[in-house]
Every structure is written in structure tokens, then in C-alpha cells.
């Protein structure tokens, strides 16, 4: 009995330790985002200066706007393309289905940098150069396969006779897809969209290779600021502590709300 309790404590302790390691850097930034100075180490006094800096710097605000707009457009387009593609694939012959599925997996398993370089070289070689369009395409290449991957399982679970029934009752194929099939797969579509948003928000490498010059996202901006590392960047960098804290709080709130409202009744990883 005693041994069992000790084992339980050991398990809880291990989980706790790993979580502590995961959250230590974020909590550190969160604490120092409320400090007066740009230095981590000594807490000089409570202040919201990093937050006001964050919301008053037009450059920083611009790049935050860039990041979120890009993520929204890339995810929306990927979701439409991926959902339509997944439905089409699902009804194709086995061979065609396997071929499309296989190619669709390439951006998923490939090193991001290879995808990025291949796209950049191709865009320049065919004379497209690098523009907002190529950036959008780049993000779609990394997002769409994940949308497909999250829609396909829902199509498999769907009762196929419903579509036939809709046709028998006089619906056009388009209407049947829109009114019967889509509502059945909508959870997969939504989770695909969310996944696409996070992938796009998180991206650094593909952005760097396909963006038009002068276009900055949170990732590229923070990376450059960190690598330069002078007094000026110290100030902007510390406003990112504030940004990190805000994003973190939003996520925590989101998770809390979705847990409390029972959206995730089923639980577990899907």
C-alpha cells in the first residue's frame, strides 16, 4: 500500500516537474513584463511601461496586425481549398486518392526549410518574385494539408446514404453537399481552420523566404531584434515580454472558457 502511494507521488512529481520546466520561461517573462526596467534579474518596481510601449509603437502594432491578418487569410483560404479537396479526394478512385494523399503529405513531413527554399526559388524562377501573394501561397502550402488531415476522418465517419437520400429527394448534388455533407464534417473543418491559424501564426521559416521586402511578422521581427541585441532592441524586446504575457493570458482564458462551457465533453486527443 505504502509503495503504491509513493509511486503515485513519484508520478505526480514527474508530471509537475516537466510542467514546471515548460512554464518557467513564460512565467519569468510574465513577471518581468510588469517591471520598470528592460533588464531581467532585479525587480525594480511595478509598472505597465512595457504594455504602453507595446500599444504605442506603430511599428510593433503594424507587425502584429500583419501576423494576424496573414494568419486569417491563409487559414481561411486553406480551409476552403482543403475542405473541398478532401471531399473530392474522398470520392475519387483508390489510386487517385492515394496519389493526392501522398503528395499532400510531402509538406507535412518535409523539413520546413526545404519547402520554403523550393517555393522561393520557384517563385523567382518563374518571375513571380516575392510578394504578398507568394507569402500567402507559402502559408497555404504548410496549412492546407493539415486541414485535409482533419477533415478526412470526419468524412470517413459520415453515413454515406444521407447524401444519396438527399439526391433521391430531389436535391442537386451541390445542394446535397452544402446542406447534408458539410454539416456532418463541420467539426473537422473548424479544427482544421484553428490548426491552420496556429501554424501560420507560428511560422518563421516559410515567411522569411516568401515575404515581400519590408514585410514583418511577430516571428521575423522578434528574431531579428534578438539577433541584433543592442540597447534599442532591448527596449522593443521587453515590449515583447508584454506581448508574450498577453497571448498567454488569452490562451489560458480561452481554454478555461471552453472547458467550463463543456465544449470539450468528449475529452482526450482527437
Amino acid at each position: 500500500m505504502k509503495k503504491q502511494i509513493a509511486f503515485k507521488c513519484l508520478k505526480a512529481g514527474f508530471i509537475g516537474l516537466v510542467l514546471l520546466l515548460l512554464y518557467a520561461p513564460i512565467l519569468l517573462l510574465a513577471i518581468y513584463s510588469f517591471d520598470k526596467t528592460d533588464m531581467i534579474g532585479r525587480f525594480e518596481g511595478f509598472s505597465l511601461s512595457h504594455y504602453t510601449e507595446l500599444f504605442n509603437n506603430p511599428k510593433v502594432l503594424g507587425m502584429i496586425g500583419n501576423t494576424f491578418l496573414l494568419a486569417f487569410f491563409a487559414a481561411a483560404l486553406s480551409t476552403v481549398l482543403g475542405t473541398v479537396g478532401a471531399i473530392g479526394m474522398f470520392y475519387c478512385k483508390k489510386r487517385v486518392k492515394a496519389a493526392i494523399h501522398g503528395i499532400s503529405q510531402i509538406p507535412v513531413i518535409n523539413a520546413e526549410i526545404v519547402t520554403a527554399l523550393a517555393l522561393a526559388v520557384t517563385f523567382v524562377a518563374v518571375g513571380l518574385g516575392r510578394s504578398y501573394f507568394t507569402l500567402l501561397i507559402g502559408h497555404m502550402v504548410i496549412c492546407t494539408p493539415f486541414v485535409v488531415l482533419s477533415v478526412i476522418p470526419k468524412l470517413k465517419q459520415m453515413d454515406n446514404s444521407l447524401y444519396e437520400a438527399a439526391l433521391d429527394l430531389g436535391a442537386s448534388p451541390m445542394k446535397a453537399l452544402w446542406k447534408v455533407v458539410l454539416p456532418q464534417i463541420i467539426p473537422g473543418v473548424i479544427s482544421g481552420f484553428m490548426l491552420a491559424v496556429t501554424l501560420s501564426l507560428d511560422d518563421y521559416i516559410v515567411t522569411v523566404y516568401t515575404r515581400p521586402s519590408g514585410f514583418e511578422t511577430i516571428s521575423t521581427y522578434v528574431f531579428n531584434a534578438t539577433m541584433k541585441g543592442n540597447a534599442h532592441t532591448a527596449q522593443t524586446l521587453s515590449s515583447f515580454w508584454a506581448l508574450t504575457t498577453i497571448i498567454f493570458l488569452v490562451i489560458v482564458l480561452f481554454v478555461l472558457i471552453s472547458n467550463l462551457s463543456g465544449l470539450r465533453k468528449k475529452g482526450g486527443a482527437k
Partner: protein
Amino acid sequence: MKIPRFSRKTLCIPYAVFLIFFVIVPMLVIVFYAFTDKSMHISFDNFIRFFSDPTKLSTIVYSLVIALITTVVCLLIAYPVAYILARSTLKKKYVILMLFVLPMWINFVLRVNAIRELFNLLSTLKGLEWLASANYFKTVFGMVYDFLPFMILPLYTTMLKIDRSLYEASADLGASGVTTFLRVTVPLSMPGIMSGITMVFLPSMTNYVVSDMLGNAKVTIIGKFIYEYFGSDWHMGSMVALVLLIVVFVSTWFSGGFKSEENVRGTNL
């Protein structure tokens, strides 16, 4: 003339065209660039230069070692976590699982920046000064930190599928806890281990953001080469990319293909 009946299959055309233009064609372009020189003549010069340059080869070895250590450490941390959570009888265990995934929703570069600040602080403490120059240690730590969820999630999903009665059967037949673990849990969680490894190994060989930001730009991994050549020599850059591409396909082949069910990229909870 009758308009052909709409077929659902035609819906796959836009995506197929998209894949051809933006996945297949770019790969072919890379192959073309890798085997041509600056005047676009066929040449094996890049290939020879790549494999005869000792710094390149040593970087490959470094990258492989860093990726290997990262993967092993990830596995050693993630396996117990996934095992404990999957076998836990807690009702809200998915909340704990979500805690492991949550940090992933913060921008990747911001997260690496947070680790950088943590190390900067730690290295000012007495007895921890060595951290300031421990570039390889910090790089590996950062990679483990960033890619750990990629390992935990596939492991968790495969372990959750293991039938609990198998553990009981094993115990009833007289196997000890350790034997059950080694002969039931480990073999049955193999698909999860495999996809976890593919999800972690490759990024840690190529993601130079981590090694640049945490390794004081002293740690060079393969991905960084591509970045450097991107500014100067696309043909050589394409050759490096091609080598990586081959590594990807060979490793996918060996791990028995890619299983999409196990491919959970964190946010798909």
C-alpha cells in the same frame, strides 16, 4: 448536348492543381537547380563540392548528433508523461494533457526568446556561469522544449488505444510490472514512438531559429546552410535541400510510412 452530371470527384481538382504547382513543381525545381551551375548547364559540381567539403560533412554530423540527442531526451521525457496520463483514471486528465500543449500556442520565436531570457538570468547566478557559453546545451534544451509536445501527443494517442484488459491479462499470466511494460506497452505503442521520432528528429536537424537564438550563433546546423546559400548560391542551396529531402524520404520509408492518425500537431485537441 447534355451537360455531364456533376461529380463529387471533380471537387478534388483545385487541390490537385494547387499541389502540382506548389509542391511537385518546386521539388523538381530544386532537383534542377541542384544539378546545374550558374549558367544553367548540367553539372555535378555542387554534388562533389558538397561531399568533399569537410566543414559541410562535420556540420551534418553535428546536426545529426544534436537531432539524435534531442529526440532521445524528448522520448525519455515524453514516454513516462504519456504513459502516466494515458493510464491515469483521472476524469479530467485531458486538462493536464492540454497543459503540455498550451505553450505551443505562444508564437514559436517568442517562446525561444523566453528561454533565452531564462538562461541569461540563470547564467548570472553563482555556480551557473558556465551556462553563458554552454551553446550546445542551450540549443538542445531549446529544441527539447519546443518539440516535446510533438512527441507527447502521438505517444498519448497510441497508448490510449491500448486495451486495458491486456495489462490485466499480462498480470494474470504472472508477468511482473516491468515485463508487462516491456512486452505489452512498448510494442503496442511503437507506432506512436515512430511518428513522434519523425516529428522531432527532422525539425531539430533543420530549425536554425533555435540554434541561432540560443547557441549565440556558434552552433551551425544543416538548416543554416540553406539560409546562407539562399543569399548567395541557389544551386548549392538546392543541393543541400535535396540531401535533406532524401533524408526525409528514406527515414519515412524506414519508419514504415507516415500514419496520419498519429500525426497530431498539438493544436488538434
